[in-house]
């Protein structure tokens, strides 16, 4: 209950110490608020847990990028030979999985530490307990030892994020791992089945394959659903050409543990009805994530705007209860990305404690899928643009390209492709940019700012490229899909 004299323990209580929650808390404290952050990690079905910082730091972006980097470095060692480096016994080069996971986990632990020091230094109270609502202004945190701690707050921000979803099939919970477990797996994963072809499944299959562990992917409908499908195909083509096996239109039926300790997975093709099976060392479930709203006891707060999937509907991060807000992956219909959560969390804190007026702009948020050949994009997919504007009003410029560095090691250029989706009329405002190739995230980031400024194809084509780079290919775009002309490059430098 709101205390009779109107004083609360805190001006702001944040449930969830991840990207969104911490950014909101730190910004609030900058404007003089008294803040508490509740954070708790319920162990994964396999028993994995981690420290403060949320998904990104512990079992998401950070370890993912480090493993992606490890995979790329492994490839570089071999490419170096073609550039003249004398590498002794190239065939003997292999990954030491425990050295890799130790290095990755050490980095994560140091980030956990720095995060905790930062909170303590800023006088933000950190409560390592699972938070739930007792009433609209009261939270109860259950600590690891079972004790409960109650606190009241004038404002509450729900930033609980999500966790991996497990299909309801025999053996899933008992024998399968998820992204929660892979980055600290206590033994090399070996031959792995990845169930799911969203970005998590593809990124994991990608780095596992590059590190030398055979990877197979079960795709229920299409890879990277929601992303531009032409680009998604480039990504999966590249993965296939590198040895990742894909089983399309397949759903898992069961996972059984054999006497050898290996796992026998059965799956079914939903189009043909055919069943198949194979034996793996590891089965990794990457079948989506769900929001952790069930444990919050939202009814006690009076928050009812919860969708069927458990996410919170809050257009301006404001729930249907005046002083209760939500940021990050828990939000319905918003990109599930760290920078989105951070930015929204900060703006929210400013609105609450610094008379801020700015609202989060969720449009044109750039992102990158860190598969072996990366896919970076910002804005609309071609399908979304066609849907919204109609074919007659859209112009798509596209090109294949050949990165300079690929020639000497004879790297595959077949999937190095980019396109710009634009309005057809006038100066042709750019609606979406898509790039498959190396360092795609680095390539796309600057263009996201350009799109925010209302970039047009006229401006893009009048931008002089930096040579030799892969990013300059955006400035060289000149062939439209409509023209039917060959988008393959003649030669570079012209």
């Amino acid at each position, binding site marked *: 209950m709101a205390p009779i004299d109107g004083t609360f323990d805190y001006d702001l209580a944040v449930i969830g110490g991840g990207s969104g929650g911490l950014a909101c808390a730190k910004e609030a404290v900058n404007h003089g608020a008294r803040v508490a952050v509740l954070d708790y990690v319920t162990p994964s079905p396999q028993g994995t847990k981690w420290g403060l910082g949320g998904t990104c730091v512990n079992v998401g972006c950070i370890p993912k990028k480090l493993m992606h980097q490890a995979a790329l470095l492994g490839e570089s060692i071999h490419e170096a030979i073609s550039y003249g480096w004398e590498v002794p016994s190239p065939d003997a080069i292999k990954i030491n999985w425990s050295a890799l996971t130790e290095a990755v986990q050490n980095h994560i632990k140091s980030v956990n530490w720095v995060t905790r020091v930062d909170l*303590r*230094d800023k006088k933000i109270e950190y409560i390592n307990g699972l938070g739930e609502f007792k009433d609209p202004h009261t939270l109860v945190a259950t600590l690891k030892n079972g004790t409960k701690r109650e606190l009241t707050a004038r404002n509450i921000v729900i930033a609980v994020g999500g966790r991996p979803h497990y299909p309801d099939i025999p053996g899933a919970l008992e024998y399968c791992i998820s992204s929660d477990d892979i980055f600290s797996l206590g033994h090399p994963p070996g031959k792995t089945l990845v169930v799911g072809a969203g970005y998590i499944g593809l990124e994991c299959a990608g780095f596992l394959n590059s590190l030398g562990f055979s990877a197979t992917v079960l795709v229920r409908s299409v890879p990277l659903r929601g992303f531009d499908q032409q680009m998604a195909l480039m990504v999966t083509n590249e993965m296939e050409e590198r040895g990742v096996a894909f089983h399309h239109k397949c759903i898992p039926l069961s996972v059984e543990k054999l006497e050898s300790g290996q796992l026998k997975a059965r799956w079914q093709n939903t189009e043909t009805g055919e069943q198949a099976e194979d034996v793996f060392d590891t089965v990794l479930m990457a079948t989506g994530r769900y929001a952790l709203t069930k444990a919050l006891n939202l009814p006690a707060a009076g928050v009812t705007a919860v969708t069927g999937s458990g996410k919170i509907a809050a257009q301006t991060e404001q729930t249907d209860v005046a002083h209760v807000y939500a940021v990050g992956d828990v939000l319905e219909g918003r990109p599930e990305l760290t920078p989105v959560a951070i930015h929204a969390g900060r703006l929210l804190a400013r609105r609450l404690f610094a008379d801020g007026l700015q609202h989060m702009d969720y449009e044109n948020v750039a992102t990158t899928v860190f598969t072996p050949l990366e896919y970076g994009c910002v804005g609309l997919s071609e399908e979304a643009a066609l849907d919204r504007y109609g074919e007659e009003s859209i112009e798509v410029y596209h090109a294949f390209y050949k990165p300079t560095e690929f020639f000497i090691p004879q790297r595959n250029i077949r999937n190095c492709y980019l396109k710009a989706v634009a309005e057809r009329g006038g100066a042709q405002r750019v609606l979406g940019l898509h790039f498959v190739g190396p360092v795609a995230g680095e390539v796309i980031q600057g263009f996201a700012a350009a799109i925010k400024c209302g970039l047009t194809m006229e401006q893009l084509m009048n931008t002089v490229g930096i040579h030799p780079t892969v990013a300059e290919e955006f400035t060289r775009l000149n062939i439209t899909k409509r023209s039917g002309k060959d988008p393959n490059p003649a030669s570079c430098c012209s």
Partner: protein
Amino acid sequence: MISFVNIEGFDEFAKYTESIDQKGPPVLFYFSGSKLPDGRSWCPDCVEAEPIIKAFLDELKKNVIFVYVDVGDREYWKDKACPFRTDSRTKLMVIPTIIKWKGVQRLEGSQCTKRELLQMLFEEDD
């Protein structure tokens, strides 16, 4: 019970690390600039931190080994090639620094003057 150890210079530091009992109490290294004839360090941040750390340690009721490491004089520290900066076991970027041996935890510069942070570093177990 706090055990105090005093170390001077990098070679002595390296030698000491080899003698650390892995199963013994936590070891915390405090890297400081050496003392001038008047008894104070040439490093002003170290001068500020030392009494605060001393007071904190007087009250600490925990079994730890506190190792005071005299890094050396100003010229030695400022040199980019100073082994305290380059060696992977320390990788110091600033003095004073307190490092928990074999852990990721460390406090740097003005962080060493804050009681709550000293508490986090010394009192928490991994």
